[in-house]
């Protein structure tokens, strides 16, 4: 039986890039540019990708390890201010399970020598993640991610 829970979280990540706000914004606003860097696992095949970058437009991406769990991303762009701001809402499914619904806000600020990008994600994270594909696979995914985070902690 699935234990139902809904956890809310907000986090903010900032980066300063030595590039103009127009160039940083452009990396988010075309399918070609975003595909070059934005997806978590570049080695996973993409079976479906819609990218309609306008207010009210949507992005839909289906990917995942070959033969494994399908990762489905669905977003609606709500607010687009060229070179300054993008706000979109998205949900994530693993196969049929909805695991999160989020609001992502990207703010682009011109600073000396480049752009400060501020990402804020506000989300509700659902029970679907707890029993995605059995205990063993879930544990391995968890361990892999823990190990990656440990490496990042050491590198930081």
């Amino acid at each position, binding site marked *: 039986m699935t234990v139902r829970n809904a956890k809310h979280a907000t986090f903010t990540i900032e980066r300063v890039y030595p590039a103009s706000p127009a*160039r940083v914004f452009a990396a988010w606003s075309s399918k070609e540019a975003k595909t070059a860097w934005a997806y978590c696992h570049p080695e996973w095949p993409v079976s479906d990708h819609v990218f309609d970058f306008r207010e009210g437009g949507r992005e839909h991406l289906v990917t995942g390890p070959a033969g494994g769990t399908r990762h489905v991303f669905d977003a609606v762009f709500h607010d687009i201010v060229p070179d300054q701001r993008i706000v979109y809402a998205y949900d994530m499914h693993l196969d049929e399970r909805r695991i*999160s619904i989020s609001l992502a806000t990207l703010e682009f600020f011109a600073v000396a020598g480049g752009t400060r990008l501020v990402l804020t994600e506000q989300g509700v994270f659902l029970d679907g993640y707890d029993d995605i594909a059995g205990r063993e696979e879930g544990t391995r995914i968890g361990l892999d991610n823990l190990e990656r985070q440990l490496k990042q902690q050491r590198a930081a």
Partner: protein
Amino acid sequence: MLNYQAAPLDLAFQALADPTRRLMVERLSRGPASVSELAQPLEMTLSAVVQHLAVLEASGLVRSEKVGRVRTCRIEPTALHSAERWISERRASWERRLDRLGTFLADTDPTSEPRRRK
């Protein structure tokens, strides 16, 4: 900031920082095992294995129970599967993506000298 308490995750990170304990968790991820079964592939004394087990139990990653003379260990999936883990994975995923964006911007910089490009 994430609005969850960091302490349980810190304990899990500490527990998994050790390669022996990672082996033990990997073994238990395939199913429950007795302490001697856990110790069997490891080149160390049983008491050292018991100490590692104590760290894993304190972190919440592993539970054990003694029935008769046999202590059986099993993975505690909630420690790894909780929503908090998922949230911290999401954040880590964003961190990696924004790093890749930095690389992408550097690689496509129209003002950089060609020799500085990848």
